[in-house]
């Protein structure tokens, strides 16, 4: 077998924080013999989890050389692998992947992982993967190669998340996992979870799926794992491993179910889940060599594709850029927040009040025009707290605390000592100006005033105030508890302290904040309105509903255009398009059909009586459709052309600092997929950006395979 050593690492390989594989001999408890205990440790604390680059693989390979020699000499009866505190390992070091320009180089990297890891399953003595903490990707695969696995009940962050990024579990996971836990469970771990907001397993789940043979408490996990290993070595414990490969029909059914799941999520638009399913399908009858070689090839294909590069780019945006907003003022300028006022007690305002009280644990005061609305708003928040209490997510003391913090009034007098007041009233500039004037009469001069407007001018809202410098746009997405994005808009006269306070508040609310200019509809709504506007325009012109509705499928968006329109609601969507039309009449049209639907008071657009939705009959009667239909490809390209143009204009206007911020907004605010990179990588790789705007948005290699 080939031996991977530090000499095998090609020149020019990226710098790496090497995860060392420390090799140490231990006496198993109870006199069961001596074992080699390998600890994976990158020398940092748990905030920098261990990963595998080529150096890390070489270190593990060297440790396995020692283990093999000791086993051959009869000096050890077992080999065990564990990680530093709280972490086993979290997979391959992906920092170098973005620089790979050669398919063979990519294939060799995959093969190196196999060459090292597989030795754990081919030793003359049993091997034990001790899953002491987070184990993702290659980290979990290390354990999968072992003969046996123990897992700490305190371990979280267990996953094979490769498909989420655009990869496959390519260091043995796709072959070994279905054979260990069955195809149905493997499809869940390899495909379904990554495609479900990259869901992670907890120890209990992983154990339940059969990933580990025994679950042990964290307090003395290592000692008890070694005791269990000793029992396996002495024969006191026997692990039953049924052959799961016999039932071809069940295997095929599980893979087919996985395909249906992937279709529903990405509509064939991303290659990784399908490649993973192919590997799982083949794993039933492949040999180890065949299975691992197939993983190498699949990995090389994906690494050389732009989808993965966009996935890595997206991951970086969400992990790094989202946590350090570009253009935000120094956080030391932020003022402490000790009380929050919410103007309005409608559903949006009540949801905001709930979020504020849960995350900040400070008094929150709701106001509205009449007592009935106030009571309803407060009751909503109290009710949601009670629900969480009933579900066991809060204990009684915490529920009491939060409940007591939320109050309501028809008077704004309660805002007097608030640090922040947010308005969530009707989208009308005059109304909002008046609300802020009333609030300013009560609050201290440094109280920050936030508006949750989605499309009005924040600058205009502030202009008649004594202290306009304290007004900031603070745009949430619905539902506010779940959507991770906050667009924070700096108005013309907003000062740094107010803006810093808004960013600090956004962070406390656990939102990802993006700084945007005070421009109509900021980023997400501006682009979505333009994008969908082109699709509905094509429909109005005579494109058949099914063609328009499925035109965007090749992008793998989370929702088809009319389903999204239904979710937003015809009235809100129409109101937004009117606002945008006023701002940019040459680019944002008005759909007369939508006007008819809204004026007729229709709230339900679609009928769901077949496998796909159709226009509801009573709505269809209202429509006036043209006679110049487009094909699906034409509709899609028209929509893409439109947003390419719009993004270029937004960058020129300085709505955001860079294309990366546009992409971050679309990833987090619209839920657009990683394989599109948000949107600009997709516009670049389809040639749309250059054709429409004369240039790419991102340099080659940023979110695509670099030109060699």
């Amino acid at each position: 077998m080939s031996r991977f050593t530090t000499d095998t690492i090609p020149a020019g390989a990226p710098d790496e924080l090497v995860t060392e594989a420390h090799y140490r001999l231990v006496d198993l408890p109870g006199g069961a013999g001596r074992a080699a205990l390998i600890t994976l440790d990158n020398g940092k604390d748990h905030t920098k989890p261990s990963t595998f680059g080529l150096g890390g693989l070489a270190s593990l390979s060297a440790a396995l050389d020692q283990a093999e020699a000791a086993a051959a000499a009869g000096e050890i009866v077992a080999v065990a692998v564990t990680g530093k505190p709280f972490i086993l390992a979290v997979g391959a070091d992906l920092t170098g992947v973005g620089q790979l320009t050669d398919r063979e180089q990519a294939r060799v990297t995959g093969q190196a992982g196999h060459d090292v890891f597989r030795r754990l399953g081919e030793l003359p003595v049993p091997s034990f993967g001790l899953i002491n903490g987070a184990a993702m990707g290659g980290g979990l695969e290390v354990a999968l190669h072992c003969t046996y696995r123990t897992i700490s009940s305190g371990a979280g962050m267990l996953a094979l998340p490769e498909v989420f990024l655009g990869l496959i579990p390519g260091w043995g996971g796709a072959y070994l996992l279905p054979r260990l836990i069955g195809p149905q469970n493997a499809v869940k771990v390899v495909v379904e979870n990554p495609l479900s907001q990259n869901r992670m397993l907890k120890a209990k789940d992983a154990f339940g799926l059969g990933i580990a043979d025994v679950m042990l408490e964290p307090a003395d996990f290592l000692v008890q794992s070694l005791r269990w290993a000793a029992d396996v070595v002495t024969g006191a414990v026997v692990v039953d491993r049924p052959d799961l490969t016999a039932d071809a029909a069940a295997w095929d059914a599980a893979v087919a179910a996985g395909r249906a799941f992937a279709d529903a999520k990405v509509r064939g638009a991303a290659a990784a889940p399908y490649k993973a399913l192919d590997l799982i399908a083949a794993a039933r009858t492949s040999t180890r060599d065949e299975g691992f070689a197939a993983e190498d090839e699949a990995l090389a294909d994906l690494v050389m594709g732009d989808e993965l590069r966009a996935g890595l780019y997206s991951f970086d945006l969400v992990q790094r850029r989202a946590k350090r907003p570009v253009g935000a003022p120094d956080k030391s300028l932020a003022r402490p927040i000790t009380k929050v006022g919410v103007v309005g007690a409608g559903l949006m305002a009540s949801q905001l009040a709930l979020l504020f009280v849960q995350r900040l644990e400070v008094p929150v005061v709701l106001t509205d025009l009449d007592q009935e609305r106030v009571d309803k708003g407060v009751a909503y928040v109290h009710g949601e707290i009670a629900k969480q209490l009933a579900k066991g997510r809060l204990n009684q003391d915490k529920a009491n605390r939060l409940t007591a913090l939320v109050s309501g009034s028809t008077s704004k007098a309660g805002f007097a000592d608030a640090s922040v007041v947010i308005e969530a009233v009707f989208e009308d500039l005059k109304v909002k100006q008046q609300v802020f004037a009333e609030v300013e009469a009560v609050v201290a001069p440094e109280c920050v005033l936030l508006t949750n407007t989605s499309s009005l001018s924040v600058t205009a809202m502030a202009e008649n105030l004594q202290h306009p410098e304290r007004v900031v746009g603070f745009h949430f997405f619905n539902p506010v508890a779940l959507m991770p994005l906050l667009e924070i808009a700096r108005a013309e006269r907003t000062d740094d302290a107010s803006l810093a306070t808004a960013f600090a508040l956004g962070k406390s609310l656990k939102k990802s904040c993006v700084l945007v200019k005070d421009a109509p509809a900021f980023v997400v709504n501006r682009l979505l309105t333009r994008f969908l506007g082109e699709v509905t325009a094509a429909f109005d012109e005579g494109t058949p509903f099914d063609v328009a509705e499925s035109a965007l499928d090749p992008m793998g968006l989370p929702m088809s255009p009319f389903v999204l329109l239904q979710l937003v609601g015809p009235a809100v969507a129409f109101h937004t398009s009117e606002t945008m039309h006023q701002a940019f009449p040459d680019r944002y049209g008005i759909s007369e059909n939508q006007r008819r639907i809204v004026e007729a008071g229709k709230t339900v657009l679609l009928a769901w009586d077949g496998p796909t939705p159709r226009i509801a009959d009573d709505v269809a009667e209202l429509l006036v459709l043209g006679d110049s239909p487009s094909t699906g490809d034409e509709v899609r390209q028209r929509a893409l052309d439109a947003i390419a143009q719009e993004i270029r204009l937004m960058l020129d206007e300085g709505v955001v600092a860079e294309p990366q911020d546009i992409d971050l907004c679309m990833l987090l605010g619209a839920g657009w997929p990683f394989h599109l990179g948000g949107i600009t990588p997709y516009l670049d790789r389809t040639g749309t950006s250059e054709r429409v705007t004369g240039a790419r948005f991102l340099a080659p290699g940023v979110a695509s395979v670099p030109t060699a």
Partner: protein
Amino acid sequence: MPSNRAVRDVVLVDAVRTPFGKAGANGIYAETRADDLVVAVFRELLRRNPGLPPERIDDVAVAATTQMGDQGLTLGRTAGILAGFPRSVPGQSVDRMCAGALTAVTNLSSGIGVGAYDVVVAGGVEHMGRHPMGEGMDPNPRLIAEKLVDPEALFMGKTAENLHDRFPHLTKARADEYAVRSQEKTAKAYADGVIQQDLVPVSVRSASLGYGLATADEPPRETTVETLAGLKTPFRAHGRVTAGNSSGLNDGATGAVLAAEEVADELGLTKKARMVSFAFAGVAPEVMGIGPVPSTQKALERAGLTIDDIGLFEINEAFAVQVLAFLDHYGIADDDARVNPYGGAIAVGHPLASSGIRLMAYLARSFEAHPEVRYGLTTMCIGLGMGGTVIWENPHFDGKKDA
């Protein structure tokens, strides 16, 4: 008065310990926290005694001499929480220097005796690598200025030299011979598998070596009288006390379950020893090693026994001379087989506050091996001039004179 106010018998249900390590950067526990050692012991106690429902534990007392850092924060409570004891189980910390664990046992046992507790967990720990002797010490200047305490009393090795002065016939040669026997008895007990029975394996982590597993005491070594004769006498030029005839600087933890005998019976718990009496006594701080003599005298008197009734002795070997002084006082030969049959602290080490329960664990094994013996005792000298003794009855006693 409550109607149930009757004195109850206390039994030692179980006693375990971590392997003892050498203190310092190269010791097995160099990068292991003291509280984690206690946690390992507590979890093993529960595992070994499945009949004990953890919620039945009425109190937890853990001794440490230096109650700072990972030995602070009321260890009896924090170690209980960390070990997974129910939140309803309270805890406390105890300090009587070297007799910390012994005091944790006697304090809690008193509570059992008067009916305040049914089941308790006692423990002790000292990580002398992380907490060198005297860390953070701030003696009141009056102690010296008013000659309340001889300045040498704060240095244990000097108090041992002082003991040699007081008893000139307890020579360095006798001390070295005693020390070699301690090593030999320990080696034999290991070879016979006696000591391992009550050791808790502990995972140890080293940043540079990775994880390891401590499964045996680190300090024991093979030695000879000749080797010991050549060692330095660090506490006094041309003195008698050496690293060879003293216990070392060590890391380790011990723990024990004690219960009212009727509760042990109810729960079906093992009974390894039955407490007969205990006593503490004070002596001149500069000869603290003589402390076990008066404390044993007191304990015997309170039990209505004499030294001749005691068939097994577990004496902490802080210094060989201090054991010899005890034996000399009671007319027992240096190499009497009843004394420390499995060796002692000179060989396995003496992580200060933890050692009292090690003595009990050893005595329990001796009781098991000697059903002809009815009574045994555990005793130790204590810094600043004290001694502590607990007299135990052998539950395995079969009434026959000699096996």
